[in-house]
């Protein structure tokens, strides 16, 4: 058994490294998109806000697995040249869109949680809308966004396990390969894979809980 562990470990670690890379890229891109969407929704910009509400509902109403297959199979099938991407890009796009819906709801909830009186006071001393957002609302809202973002990050890390299905060589895929090579040690190998996810995610969850106790909790329905 220890031989098997020793020989599969390098592959699993390599898979973990790819999982870390993907989750990192995705949390950055997804947060940027999500931040923009959330701001639009919080500011209730007429038509755009409605359209983006639909975007969030559609993505929220369907499983990530379906997003992944649609992005991976359907977009390249449209024969538009810039939609001819490979599996890795497809996985990043699907995961980023998925992330953005979560981030958008957090950003919106945090901005809406800043008391209205603050905005009114800022506007009444002559700040423009943008100044008020920049100096009054966002500094407080961003502080409230930090704890739930930790939860999102863990959801994303776990979500990356699904992209193994389109052939990305991340941790689950590495585990599947190892399990094929040593079928009788399947449980040990999947156990190791689970352990690696645990070692990556658990500290983030703890940190999130600590941040919650420091910065307070915003009510976001995830």
């Amino acid at each position, binding site marked *: 058994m220890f031989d098997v562990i020793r020989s599969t470990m390098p592959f699993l670690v390599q898979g973990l490294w790819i999982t870390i890379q993907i989750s990192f890229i995705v949390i950055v891109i997804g947060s940027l998109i999500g931040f923009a969407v959330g701001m639009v929704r919080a500011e209730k910009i007429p038509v755009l806000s409605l359209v983006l509400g639909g975007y969030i*509902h*559609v993505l*929220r*109403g*369907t*499983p*990530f*697995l*379906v997003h992944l*297959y*649609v992005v991976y*199979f*359907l977009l390249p*099938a*449209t024969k538009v040249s810039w939609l001819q991407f490979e599996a890795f890009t497809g996985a990043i796009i699907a995961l980023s869109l998925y992330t953005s819906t979560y981030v958008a709801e957090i950003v919106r909830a945090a901005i809406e949680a800043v008391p209205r009186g603050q905005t009114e006071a800022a506007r009444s001393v002559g700040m423009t809308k943008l100044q008020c957002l920049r100096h009054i609302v966002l500094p407080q809202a961003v502080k409230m966004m930090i704890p739930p973002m930790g939860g999102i990050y*863990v959801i994303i*890390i*776990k*979500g*990356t*396990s*699904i992209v*193994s*299905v389109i052939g990305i060589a991340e941790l*689950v895929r590495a*585990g599947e390969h190892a399990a094929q090579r040593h079928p009788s040690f*399947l*449980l040990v190998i*999947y*156990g190791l*894979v*689970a352990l690696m*996810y*645990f070692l*990556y*995610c*658990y500290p983030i*969850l703890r940190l999130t809980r600590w941040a919650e106790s420091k910065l307070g909790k915003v009510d976001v*329905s*995830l």
Partner: protein
Amino acid sequence: MAECIPTMDWILDFYNYRVVAQYLPEFGRGIVSTMGISLVALVLSLVIGTLSALMSLSARAVLRNIAGGYISVIRSTPLLIQIYLIYFALPALPLLDRRLTELEGGIIALGLNAGAFMSEIIRAGIVSIERGQIEGAMSVGMTYLQRMRHIILPQAIARVVPPLLGQSAVLIKDSSLVSFIGVFELFGAGLTVLNERLMPNEAFLTVAAGYLAIYFLMSVFSSYAQRKLGGAYA
């Protein structure tokens, strides 16, 4: 005649609804299966979640630690790996003399997974019940189980119905992952069309529409439930 109307051609090329119509029974069975799997897993997760919430509030450290460990492990590992581990590991336990079917394995994994999230929600509901209620129940001589059954849990669960429904929606979406171990459900119906016809658009746009239909039903039901419970408890 059809070649006179180029737009029709384009639509058929992109989304051939005739093929979809042909596979409609398949998609229908998929939706029913997805809802059935989710419902059984939901009941399982509520039972596990309530037990685990009670354990996490117990005075005994052992019970608290078991519940805490269960929640941490579930929350820190992907559902896909949990499904694999349960599907492959449970039959290895000596108390089962047969292999679990894919369906059983999938439902148990989904129930255990959602149970951890339900547990945290239900726990928050129990904690929110005022101390006076417990004291009142104790002063009329109710035992722990009677208190939980008649006083605390009904109110606690009514208070957290919105997040419980939100978690149920997540459960329905997560149930698509059991197709990985070969359980037939809505996503599996899409895979069938992909494999038999090599038509990803028809397969997955239809699957997406199916999930959206379930999601829509859920949200209608959820606002109904909130109106009802809002009147009774809020």
